[in-house]
């Protein structure tokens, strides 16, 4: 497989501009004649559907929730970055570009990241015009905060509900186009396969989740904005329904999968309390601005926190990283929390560390802390049943985001012509580690401002034969989906899909989570196929396929996770270096920091499906750094 990245040449500041000029345009009168399928109604899918429809294309948009407004993007809390420099603190497009490339530990494409930083300005303008109620100063201008250790204040936010407000903006734009008849919305509809004809993406097979009906949708191009695969770990901060089915089926139809092992762990989540736990809840990173992280110095110290005197506490981040302290990047904070818990110094159910606000409350007063974090403290109390104004919070890292995804070129097209991937579903801009408040930016950049141009270039320059439902590839995909559904229903074994999912998640968390090593990954690679085999013999899915059957939906998703987990471990095993969220224990500096190997691994790993039971092929896209020169990250 040849990976054509289609990165324009010339000075980086002018690349996107020039590229836009060089792309072919579809005649406005002809746009109506093109049908585009968008799977997903999150920030990426909703913004893309609305913008494509405004241009005049015929759009069909799909989501599995009962309304497009409920896509997982709704849960994002902290904010969205943009290089507006409204605070006059020295921010610029170049600085956002620089921070993102460095934060991604030099595993992202420079040209994409630069374009993202440029477009960040337009995103804020568009969202404000739609009525997104961003936080404001008394003078009426937009306000910003600094986020995730950034040295400038470039994060725009709407209380702790930024994702909700941005998504509602995009959702309203989408429904405006539904009302105008330019978009047909299919809620409670799940894509279960991709239709590829003559090497081009030409449609999808879906299941109506209410009636169980399997349907075909043919089109001239297909866009996947189906989100990340963090739920492969079972417990994550993602919504329960988030899954990898759409991108996994696309992979099996020939789309290369980029850097599947690049997953992000968020350091501040509420710890697990029991086996019944169904998901993990994020506590915004902003808490680290005022909270101090510590554990007891002694192992197995079970005294309640207020009985542990100051000199018997270990503020380990402040001790190890005097200049960044509690504000070190996500991956560093997470690994250190795991390390102290592995030493037996964890608190609560042993997998937790304290995030203590006592000093901040003493210094600023309870009222001031309430103003800053009131809603987060309330949420913590609702879930943990403890009052964080009185007792320190207990936190622990959790899977939060996946940088890997379908490989895409500069136009966001996958290796299957006519198939695009946008938002968290693609691998593109965050390298090996994503900075806070950059996912919302990327999803909206892709959907509002990049895809609407690049898809036109493809349509205008490609000859697309008319296809109909009688084509053998279409029949094939349709029967494949029906067969899988029936198979799942016929097994009637002894274990629920959820129990397989929990077991897979536990295995991946142990062997392919916060830190990874060769023997562990090999063990996982051996165990996963066994688990998969047992699943197909022993899973128990009741009911029928012709009704709302949530257990069946879930079983299909778990089946795909059981396949995908293997690819993730394979990628982690092959990447014999540590970078960003991928920490290989064999590759660390003497004081335990990630050790990159730029000589051998400065590339994107794009895995190509080779057929059932065959090892996937590895393709490499070399990464070239012309502007930001690779250096070891240091937060000491």
């Amino acid at each position, binding site marked *: 497989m040849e990976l054509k990245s289609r990165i324009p040449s010339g000075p980086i500041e002018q690349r996107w501009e020039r590229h836009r000029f060089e792309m072919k345009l579809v005649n406005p009168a002809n746009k109506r004649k093109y049908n585009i399928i968008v799977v997903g109604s999150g920030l990426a899918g909703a*913004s893309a559907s*609305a*913008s494509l429809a*405004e241009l005049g294309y015929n759009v069909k948009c799909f989501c599995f*929730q009962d*309304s*497009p*407004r*409920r896509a*997982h993007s*709704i*849960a994002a809390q902290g904010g969205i970055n943009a290089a*507006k420099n409204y605070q006059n603190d020295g921010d610029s497009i170049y600085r956002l570009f620089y921070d993102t490339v460095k934060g991604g530990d030099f595993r992202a494409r420079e040209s994409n990241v630069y374009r993202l930083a440029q477009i960040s300005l*337009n995103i804020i*303008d*568009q969202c*404000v*015009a*739609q*009525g997104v*109620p961003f*936080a*404001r100063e*008394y003078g*009426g*201008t*937009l306000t910003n905060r600094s986020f995730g250790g950034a040295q400038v204040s470039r994060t725009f936010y*709407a209380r702790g509900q930024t994702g*909700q*407000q941005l998504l*509602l903006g995009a*959702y*309203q*734009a989408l*429904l*405006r186009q*539904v*009302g105008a008849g330019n978009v047909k*919305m299919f*809620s409670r509809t799940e894509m279960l396969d991709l239709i590829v004809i003559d090497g081009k993406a030409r449609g999808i097979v879906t299941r109506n989740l*209410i009636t169980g009906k399997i349907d075909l949708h043919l089109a001239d191009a297909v866009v996947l904005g189906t989100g990340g695969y963090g739920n492969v770990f079972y417990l994550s901060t993602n*919504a*329960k329904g988030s899954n990898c089915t759409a991108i996994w089926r696309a992979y099996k139809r020939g789309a290369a999968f980029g850097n599947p092992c690049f997953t992000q762990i968020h350091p501040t989540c509420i710890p697990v309390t*029991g086996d*019944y*736990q*169904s998901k993990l*809840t*994020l506590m915004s990173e902003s808490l680290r601005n005022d909270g101090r992280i510590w554990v007891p110095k002694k192992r197995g110290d079970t005294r309640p926190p207020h009985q542990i005197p100051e000199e018997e506490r270990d503020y380990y981040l402040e001790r190890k990283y005097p200049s960044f302290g509690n504000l070190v990047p996500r991956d560093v904070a997470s690994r250190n929390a795991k390390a102290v818990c592995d030493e037996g110094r964890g608190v609560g159910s042993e997998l937790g560390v304290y995030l203590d606000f006592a000093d901040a409350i003493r210094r600023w007063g309870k009222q001031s802390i309430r103003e800053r974090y009131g809603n987060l403290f309330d*949420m913590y109390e*609702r*879930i943990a049943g403890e009052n964080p104004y009185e007792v320190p919070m207990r936190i622990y890292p959790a899977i939060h985001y996946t940088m890997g995804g379908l490989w895409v070129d500069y136009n966001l097209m996958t290796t299957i012509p006519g198939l695009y991937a946008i938002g968290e579903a693609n691998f593109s801009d965050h390298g090996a580690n994503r900075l806070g408040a950059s996912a919302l930016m990327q999803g909206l950049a892709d959907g509002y*401002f990049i895809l609407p141009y690049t898809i036109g270039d493809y349509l205008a320059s490609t000859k697309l034969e008319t296809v109909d439902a009688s084509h053998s590839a279409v029949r094939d995909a349709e029967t494949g989906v029906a067969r899988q559904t029936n198979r799942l229903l016929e097994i009637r074994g002894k274990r*629920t899909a959820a129990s397989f999912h929990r077991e897979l998640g536990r295995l991946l968390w142990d062997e392919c989570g916060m830190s990874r090593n060769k023997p562990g990954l090999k063990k996982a690679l051996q165990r996963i196929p066994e688990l998969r085999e047992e699943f197909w013999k022993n899973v*128990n899915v*009741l*009911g029928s396929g012709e*009704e*709302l059957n949530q*257990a069946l939906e879930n079983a299909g998703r778990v089946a795909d996770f059981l396949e995908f987990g293997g690819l993730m471990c394979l990628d982690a095993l092959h990447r014999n270096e540590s970078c960003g969220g991928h920490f290989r224990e064999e590759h660390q500096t003497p004081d335990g920091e990630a050790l990159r190997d730029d000589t051998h691994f400065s590339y994107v790993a794009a895995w190509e499906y080779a057929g059932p039971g065959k090892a996937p092929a590895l393709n490499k896209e070399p990464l070239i750094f012309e502007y930001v020169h690779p250096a070891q990250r240091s937060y000491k």
Partner: protein
Amino acid sequence: MKLTLHIWRQKNPNHVGRMVLYEHNKVNRHMSFLEMLDVLNEELIAKGEDPIAFDHDCREGICGSCGFMINGVAHGPQRGTTVCQLHMRHFKDGDVLYLEPWRARAFPVVKDLVVDRSAFDRIITSGGFISVPTGNAPDGNAIPVPKRNADLAMDAATCIGCGACVAACPNAAAALFTGAKITHLGLLPQGQPERYQRVLNLVVQVKQELFGSCTNIGECEAVCPKEIKLEVIARMNRDYLRASWTRRGDALRNEE
């Protein structure tokens, strides 16, 4: 702890539903309400019985997917909390709970505790937006917005569209939901050009969806997980009245 649960089971919209009794004795006080149901469902599956269907996704109180009545109260006893965020420590050993789906003509039952809330999407489709195609926006700071207005708009915009307001209302009215959107957009300068047309369009759509009329009872405010205030209904009514006069022609045309 142990619970006695009476849960509404209904196979599909065409079947008649009924309450079914379940004794649940694996309840842990740290579980969320939905985790308690997950555990029950795993047991049902093990026994070969159809698990209970309920909508959920984020389990963080923000997507608006979850929601049913617990002992006649939408989202259960804790104020300002969706059922996914409600924890079992608020219940006692031996409690008897009745779980029922949202009841409203505009929200037909799909299965068990799942209802069809697509009427809400159609209300927004009828005009719950600001018409600004991508690329048309001026600089974000070009139009200052008084902080107070931005804050009040945010209070209204925080609606998660769960439908608890409709379920709690004896008239099954959608006034809190609709008022929240009208208030959010109507308080912002960007929302002014379409302000009066918007309220006319939305109110007509609400009627077409067979929601009831608001008679200012206030049950909606009491159960709203985002604590949206009745004030949004007053703002909607005021805008509607004004629109009915200044745009009489449009209003009449819309009524038809």
